[in-house]
C-alpha cells in the first residue's frame, strides 16, 4: 500500500485519526521524559540536602502562594558570571525534596538559590515589609500582611507532612506529631524567613563553584 493510499484511510476514519495523533505525539514523551523519570542520579540527594522542617515547609508554601517564583529564579547556571554573582551552580541532588520545583523562568529580581545566610533575619523582615527601606531602587512588592498573619493558619501542616511522607519524604511520626507546635507563636513572615535562610545550604561547604 502506498503512503498516499494509507493516508487516505486515516483521513477518512475518525478512530484512526485519534489513534494516529495520540501515537505520534506520545513518542517524544516516551523516549525523552520516561528515562528522566527513571534516572536515579536525579532522585539522589546531595549529602547535606535534607527535608524541610515544618516551619521551612510552611515558609516555602507561602513563597509559592505569593508567587515569588514569578520574579525570582532558584537556579544558578554554570557560568562564570553567575557563580561569581550568586555562588556555586545548581545540582540536581539539591532539589529532590522540592515539590513542585521552583527554578522559575524569569529573573526580574535576583536569583535566590544561594540566598541562605547572606542577609540577617532582621534585614529580611524589613525587606519583606518594605523593600524600598533597604534597597532604594527595588521594584519588589511589599508584603505587610505576612507580619500580621499567624503561620499556624497558613495551611494544615500535619496533613502536609503526611502527604509528603506518602510521596517518600523521610518524615518520622515524631516529626509529624511535633509539627503543629513548632508553628505556634510564629507569624507567616518568620516561616518565610526560615525558608529563605536555608535556601541553597544543601551543598557541601567546601564546594565553591
Amino acid at each position, binding site marked *: 500500500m502506498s503512503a498516499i493510499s494509507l493516508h487516505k484511510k486515516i483521513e477518512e476514519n475518525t478512530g484512526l485519526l485519534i489513534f494516529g495523533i495520540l501515537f505520534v505525539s506520545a513518542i517524544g514523551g516516551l523516549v*525523552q521524559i520516561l528515562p528522566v523519570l527513571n534516572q536515579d542520579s536525579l532522585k539522589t540527594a546531595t549529602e547535606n540536602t535534607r527535608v524541610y522542617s515544618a516551619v521551612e515547609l510552611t515558609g516555602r508554601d507561602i513563597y509559592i502562594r505569593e508567587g515569588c517564583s514569578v520574579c525570582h529564579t532558584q537556579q544558578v547556571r554554570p557560568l562564570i558570571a553567575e557563580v561569581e554573582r550568586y555562588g556555586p551552580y545548581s545540582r540536581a541532588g539539591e532539589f529532590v525534596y522540592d515539590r513542585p520545583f521552583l527554578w522559575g523562568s524569569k529573573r526580574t529580581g535576583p536569583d535566590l538559590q544561594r540566598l541562605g545566610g547572606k542577609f540577617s533575619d532582621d534585614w529580611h523582615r524589613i525587606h519583606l515589609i518594605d523593600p524600598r527601606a533597604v534597597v532604594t531602587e527595588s521594584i519588589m512588592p511589599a508584603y505587610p500582611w505576612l507580619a500580621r498573619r499567624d503561620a499556624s493558619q497558613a495551611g494544615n501542616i500535619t496533613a502536609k507532612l503526611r502527604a509528603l511522607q506518602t510521596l517518600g519524604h523521610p518524615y518520622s511520626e515524631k516529626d509529624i506529631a511535633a509539627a503543629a507546635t513548632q508553628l505556634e507563636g510564629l507569624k507567616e513572615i518568620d516561616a518565610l524567613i526560615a525558608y529563605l535562610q536555608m535556601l541553597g545550604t544543601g551543598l557541601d561547604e567546601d564546594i565553591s563553584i
Partner: protein
Amino acid sequence: MNEVMNNSYHDKVVIRLIQFSIIWALLAMTAGVYISAELIWPDMDFGQFWLSYGRLRPLHTNGIIFGFGVSALMATGFYSVQRTSHVPLFLPKLAWFCCYAWQLIVLLGGLSLLAGWTTSKEYAELEWPFDIAIAVTWVCFGVVFFGTIANRKIKPIYISNWFYGALIIVIAMLHIVNSLAIPVTFGKSYSIYAGAQDAVVQWWYGHNAVGFLLTGGFLGMMYYFLPKHSGRPIWSYRLSVVAFWTFTYSYIWAGPHHLHYSAVPDWVLSLAMVMSVILLAPSWATMINGVMTVSSASEKLKTDPALKFIVLSLAFYGLATFEGPMMSFPSVNVVSHFTDWTVGHVHSGALGWNAMITYGTFYFMVPRLVGTELYSVRLANIHFWMALAGTMLYIMSMWGAGVSQGLLWLSVDEIGELSFSFTDIMSSMTPYYGLRLMAGMIFLGGTALMAYNLYMTVLGKQAVTVQVPKVDPAFGVNS
C-alpha cells in the same frame, strides 16, 4: 428520521463563546497592563494581597490562554467542524455544558489564583479541584467534536479538524500527566514529581501547551478561515498534511529547551534543541502554505480588515516560530534565558499570532452569525493598525530590555569581576517597561474598539439559522 429537525447548524453556542472570549480578553489584557505598570510603580498594589504582582501575573496568563484563547478555540472549532462535516453538532446540549462549565472554571479559577491557590507550575497554576474539572470538561469537548466528525456527511476529514483534534487529544494527555499530585487540602497539593524531574515534566507540558493549544489549535482556525474568507483553496493540501504530522511528532520533544544550563541531563537538552530546530520546517511550511493561499486574493486583502488580521497573524507566526528555535540554541539562550526577551517572544506569538488571528475570525464570523454587515469597517481598520503598532512596540521594547539584561548580567571585566550590580541592571529597565506599558495600552485599546464594534454589529439582531447544505455526491460518505 431526524433529518427535518436536525438540518441546521448550532450556532448560538458559538455566539455565546465569542462573547465570553472577548470579555476574558478585555479582563486579562487589563490585568496584563496593570502588572506591567506595577513593574514601574511597585506600590500600585496598595498593600492589597490580591493586587500583588505574584498573584496577578498568573491571572493574566491563565485569563488569556484559558479564558480568551480556549473560548475562541471552542467557538471556532464548533463553527468549523459543523461546516466541514455538513452535519450539526453532536450532542448540542453537551456543547452548551462545555461552554458554561469552561467559563465557570475560568472565573472561579481566576479568583482562586487571587486567593493564593496555586501550584506555581506555569500555565498549570490552578489547583487540583480545577484540574479535575478541566479534565472532565475537556473530555466533553472531545466527545462533541469527534462525535460531530464521526457523524459527518463528507468523506475526508478536513485538515482544520486534525489540528483541533490534536489540540483536544494532546492537551488532555499533557494536562493529566503534569497535574498528577497528592491533595492536602482543597487549595493545596504536592506534585508527585520532585525537583529536576518535576522541571522536565512541567516544561514538557508548558512548551506543548504553547505548541498544541496556542499553535496547533490556532492553526486549525487558520486552515478553515483563511481559505474560506479569501475564497481560495489551500495552496497545497499535501503540504498541509505533511506539515501536520511533522508538527505533531516534533513539537513534543522541544520542551526541555526551557531548562538550558540547568541540572537536567545534557542529552535531554541537546535533543530538545535539535527537535526545536527541526520544528522550524513544519512551522514555516504552514506559514508559506497560508501566504500562498491568500496571494491570489490580494485585492480582497486591501479592503477587508478580517483578512488583513489573518494574513498579518501569519507573518507574526513566522517570526515567532523562527525566533523560538534560535532561542533554543545554548549560545543564544545563555543571553535570552530568564530575561524579558522571553516575555517579548511569548507576546510576539500571543499578540501577533493568537490574538490577531482570533480578531480576524471574529470579524469574519460575527456579522455572518447574525446575518448583517460589520457595524464599522473603519473602526476595524483602526483596530488593525493599533494591534500592529502595539505588538511591534511590545516586541521591540522587550528585545531591548532582554538583550541588555542578558549581556549585562554576563559581563565580567578582565580579571573576572562582575561589571554591574544586579540592582543597577534592574533599575535601568524602567524606560523599556514604560514603552511596554504603552504598547499594552494601545493593544488593549484596539481590543476594546473591536468589542464595541462587534457589540454594535449584533445589537438587536437574532442569530440566523443556517441550513446544512446538500452534500456534493463526489465527496459524500455514501458515494
